[in-house]
């Protein structure tokens, strides 16, 4: 960290004052330097590279992200040894800068719908790549617009007149040396976005662009010189990468929300406003119950997501060990779990960041608060790597499948094992949760049971509604669609249960008594706040009574007051460096107002004392009227 922070080469003007082109240029400059310095310092360990990179770019996206994060790893996993010889070292040495071109203008999450074609020509032993429609133009890949000279392109493979589905091809797109697009390639930047200013997300259109047969990534599927297609052994393997990336997003959700909480809570301790008691000085706004109610549940959520992210990383490591030994049995549940948790955490964090910003009032709206930037950088994760609603439905598919297994007498394992209890309840005609769970609202373990009952109730309701639709209609897909709102709710309830469960489980692992005490308070707040926001579910399912709900609401407010003295310490524990937060409101030293003034003075509008618009427009108008 100090290595980067103290290096004058990595210093630059505040990004908020730069145009998009300038921000891109800064990012490229730093990436180039970073690569040079990594070599100089001899840093090669992936973990160390990751930290170095994140300090250089302060956790922000950069044009080489796709090269490092997708292009190189894809070469490693999907290229043959011969292809690795040809491409990997040049790419490692940045002679080749690559990106990963999957998403098209017309299709994203639904991969089978991609339209780019790669037609094999046995006469020349080449693939002919085409973007046959406007919608088939590759759109969004990072680093494609201006930076890359190669791309791994996903296209529908046609050979011997047949479509063989999606395959990956290495496509050179720019001339080495001049960096000009190659003939047959149209490539450029897709224009301004909500955020990601430093990233040159690009478009790519190919017209009869030919590449040698050897440029298809052929570790699994192959096309022989005569055009014969050789099928891959298993296609489940690619799930591994997706699972890994989704688990990173959960970690990202935790980090982004923690940053927003740090800013909002520190600022709320610095700002004084109005009066609580007549005649006394203005209190810190963090002393207002409404402000605590906005921020502390989010703080608890940030901690909860940290533990979930860590759990997912561990599980991924454990299961990928199994996969390497050929055991794929853990994949379906893991895939289902990561899809839902990715959606749940990214939605919640995205909304939470906005609440933090809103809690900072007008100053939160200024770019100097840093929260607008955190938001626009994080919020696309609701869409990329799988659109959230589609993710929720994937989880739901697994839940319904597990439910049906239970109903047909099989037992299920893992996080869905609570469904096993349903078979015992089946004699009852009514909903399972009509039984009363004795919930003790001060005991996290008991609250886990309440969330479990809610999840079971929703899964069963969705599965039953689906069955009812199936009885009415011929089409399975139609029935599924008509139940999808219920199915999403079931997934959400399941994910919520998993998170409360993981948070609670974490408590017993904390050895320091004081830390455990404060984490227990946060865990309780997380669980109880979740109930108070979804009282309808718990009431309707008969898990909690009216009186208990009133107690829950009351207890939430008591916890706010209990957490209040530790609030700043709890965000300090996240240990974000000021440079990393990039926020005037969230400074560690709390000197907010004077630094806002210093910051504003650097605004481009202030470059001259009298703005040129005065001479161009104002003065002539005043003269005329």
């Amino acid at each position, binding site marked *: 960290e100090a290595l980067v922070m103290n290096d004058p080469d990595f210093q630059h003007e505040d990004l908020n004052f730069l145009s*998009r082109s300038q921000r891109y240029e800064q990012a490229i400059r730093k990436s180039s330097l970073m690569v040079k310095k990594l070599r100089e310092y001899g840093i090669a360990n992936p973990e160390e590279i990751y930290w170095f990179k994140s300090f250089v770019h302060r956790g922000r996206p950069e044009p080489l992200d796709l090269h490092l994060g997708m292009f190189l790893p894809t070469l490693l996993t999907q290229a043959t040894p011969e292809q690795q010889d040809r491409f990997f070292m040049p790419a490692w040495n940045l002679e080749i800068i690559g990106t990963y071109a999957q998403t098209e203008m017309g299709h*994203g999450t639904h991969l089978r719908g991609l339209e780019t074609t790669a037609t094999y020509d046995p006469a020349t032993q080449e693939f002919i790549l085409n973007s046959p429609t*406007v919608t088939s133009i590759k759109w969004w890949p990072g680093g494609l*617009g201006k930076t890359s000279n190669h791309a791994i392109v996903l296209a529908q493979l046609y050979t011997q007149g047949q479509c063989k589905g999606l395959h990956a091809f290495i496509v050179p797109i720019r001339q080495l040396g001049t960096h000009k697009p190659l003939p047959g390639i149209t490539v450029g930047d897709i224009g301004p976005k909500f955020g990601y200013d430093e990233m040159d997300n690009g478009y790519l259109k190919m017209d009869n662009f030919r590449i040698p047969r050897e440029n298809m990534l052929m570790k699994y599927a192959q096309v022989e010189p005569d055009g014969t297609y050789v099928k891959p052994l298993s296609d489940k393997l690619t799930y591994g990468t997706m699972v890994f990336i989704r688990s990173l997003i959960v970690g990202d959700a935790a980090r982004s929300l923690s940053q927003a909480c740090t800013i909002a809570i520190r600022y709320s301790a610095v700002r004084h406003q109005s009066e609580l008691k007549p005649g006394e000085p203005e209190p810190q706004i963090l002393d207002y119950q409404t402000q605590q109610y906005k921020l502390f549940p989010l703080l608890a959520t940030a901690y909860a997501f940290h533990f979930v992210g860590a759990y997912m990383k561990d599980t991924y490591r454990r299961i990928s060990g199994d996969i390497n030994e050929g055991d794929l049995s853990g994949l379906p549940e893991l895939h289902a779990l990561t899809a839902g948790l990715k959606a749940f955490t990214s939605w919640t964090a995205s909304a939470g960041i906005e609440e933090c910003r809103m809690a900072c009032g007008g100053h939160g709206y200024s*770019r*100097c608060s840093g929260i607008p930037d955190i938001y626009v950088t994080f919020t696309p994760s609701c869409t990329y790597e799988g659109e959230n609603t589609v993710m929720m439905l994937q989880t739901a598919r697994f839940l319904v499948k597990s439910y049906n297994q239970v109903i047909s007498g099989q037992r299920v394992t893992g996080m869905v094992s609570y469904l096993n209890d349903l078979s015992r309840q089946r004699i009852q005609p009514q909903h399972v949760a009509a039984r009363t769970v004795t919930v003790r609202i001060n005991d996290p373990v008991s609250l886990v049971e309440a969330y479990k009952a809610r999840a079971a109730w929703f899964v069963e309701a969705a599965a039953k509604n689906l069955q009812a639709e199936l009885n009415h209609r011929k089409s399975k*897909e139609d029935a599924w669609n008509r139940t999808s709102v219920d199915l999403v709710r079931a997934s959400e309830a399941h994910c919520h249960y998993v998170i409360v469960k993981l948070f609670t489980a974490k408590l017993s692992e904390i050895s320091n008594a004081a830390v455990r005490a404060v984490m227990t308070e946060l865990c309780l707040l997380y669980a109880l706040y979740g109930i108070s926001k979804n009282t309808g579910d718990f*009431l309707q399912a008969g898990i909690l009574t009216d009186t208990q709900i009133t107690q829950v609401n009351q207890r939430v*407010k008591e916890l706010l007051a209990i957490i209040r003295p530790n609030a700043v310490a709890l965000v300090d524990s996240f240990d974000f460096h000021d440079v990393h937060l990039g926020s005037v409101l969230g400074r560690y030293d709390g000197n907010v107002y004077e630094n806002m003034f210093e910051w504003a003075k650097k*605004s481009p509008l202030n470059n001259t004392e009298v703005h040129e618009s005065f001479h161009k427009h104002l003065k002539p108008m005043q003269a005329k009227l």
Partner: protein
Amino acid sequence: SVNPDLASERQTASFSVEKLTAQLDGGVEHTRLRRAVVEAIECDPVFSRENQYFQSQNERYESAVRKAVHLQKKMHEMGWTENGPEFKYIYRALSGDVAFLLHRVFMRSISVLGSDEQIAKWIPLASQYQLIGSYAQTELGHGTYLQGLETTAVFDTTTQEFILNTPKISAMKWWPGDMGRSATHTVVFAQLYVHGKSYGVHPFIVQIRSLQDHSLCPGVTAGDIGPKMNFEHVDNGYLMLQNVRVPRENMLNKFCKVQPDGTYVRQGSQKINYFTMTTVRIALISDEVVIPLMKACTIAIRYSVVRRQSKLKPGEQEAKILDYQTQQEKLLPQLAAAYAFHFLNNYLQELFDKAYREIQKKNFDMLPELHAFSSGFKAMVTQYCTSAVEVCLRACGGHGYSSLSGLPSLYTKILASCIYEGENTILLLQTARFLIKCFKTASTGQPVPPSVIYLAAVKHGKCPAKNKLDFLHPDIYTEAYQHMAARLVSSTAAKLQDLIQSGVKKHDAWNQCTVQMVQAAKAHCHYMTVKNFAETVEKLDTKAGIQKIMKHLCDLFALHGIFSSAGFFLHDGYVSGAQMDMVTASYLDLLAVIRKDAVPLVDAFDFTDKSLNSALGSYDGQVYQRLYEWAQKSPTNKQISPAYERYLKPLLHNMQSKM
């Protein structure tokens, strides 16, 4: 040509789009006039917004100033006046992308707070743009809580001047629009001191820039506060004053006056001033909140019938994403909300016109109710619509994230409305204070304003619905809302009472109940919105299918609210678990019904493509083509990137030579 996927949606409309548009505008004549104004503005290239997504803050500012200046000329040419019927459509046609909006606030504050002499002196200068005004209230350290402002104005009897000062950094004026670069004058709110005694916050006219060369006046430090989430075209500014002297006549003195010897005199009723503040809160609902939501719905819904993704039935074409229940559940409730708040806004306007007539007759009885209304509805509508626009943005997936979709700028702009003109949480607490007061008054049998009479009659009944169709009766759901609102208000009042009786100090008790109060205030506003929507539908024309489709939207708005806040309705058993299942069933059924009219319902908002300024939302639905062509115009594509020559090339070559 229109994309066939969009064209087919228009053929099945169950109502007349043109008639609904007229209904929304308040009559065919208004529609005609609006279209004429929009046409006149949009055909003028100076007002074009096509390049705005590509422009820097400096360019946006300059273009806003140019537009403001050009608008004066245009109005003169067209024969439009500030008081004419066209005026309200001009701002809409410009989408607010113009400078000097605070100049109008400057003028209004002088008209309301100034004496006749002051009006006679300043208003002609301002209308002739001989000076440019701003309105400096908010400070770095204080916003909604006005008594906390720290700028000082000390009266000096010897020179008959006020000496204005910014005593510390948090007292710096911060945020006022048009002040960073443009304004020559501003109305500064400062704590008045005479002979060492404080008299509270008062307004002063202060010149900050030279009328000759626009340089800052002595003692004045002013500039732009830097980039924000949106409003790049506005030079929100800071202002620091060091011993700046203004003559005694510059204190706006319609209500309060400092005489030459320093005697402080109050005169007349300030209530009218109070009324102005509430009017501003209501005025912003239409232009700043409801219209942006309508635009966002238009973009998201049109795009959702053009975009096809995945298959609903094997072997068929990929389905329009609006055919997915989950997509309908995201967008259609937002569409219903846009209509609900449009009608609510009409209701509030009528109410305010009525109040204004009363006030001119010196009858101020309606003021407390109006104040509570304006606070609560401003907070509720801005918050609701902000979330709704965000839902629209996210429902457009990756392309929604592109600036060219128009959605990011709609979102970042509307969300500022949650803060300006009063922070929402504080406003809701003001409404709650009023409701609790009325509840207490009503329980002792004394009269209360008509809108809150229901608080007196909290019944412990049950919802009478027997099947899911019963929930399509406005009486049934309106009563459910009424019951819920009344319950939340009464239980909050009871809780407050309990705390005070158990010995908790009044202010502590108040703070401990604020979370509940916010909920109660929102519940009241939600109830009023549903009630007004249902009553409006009753009165609509039964011809041309309009009443029928509006009834569906009203049902959807109401049931969506119950579905999303089920706990509030279930809590005391007013709605049973079985009834909640009926609500859900009816709600989901309605989505499929309204789906068929979704595109005609957004067409009726009648936005031109230029005003939407979106690659995804244009009338012809040529989404992908437009996105591709527009992106190519991005400045990032105009030249070979300097980054290549400067950094990439050396990087590539350096590495190559080392190998």
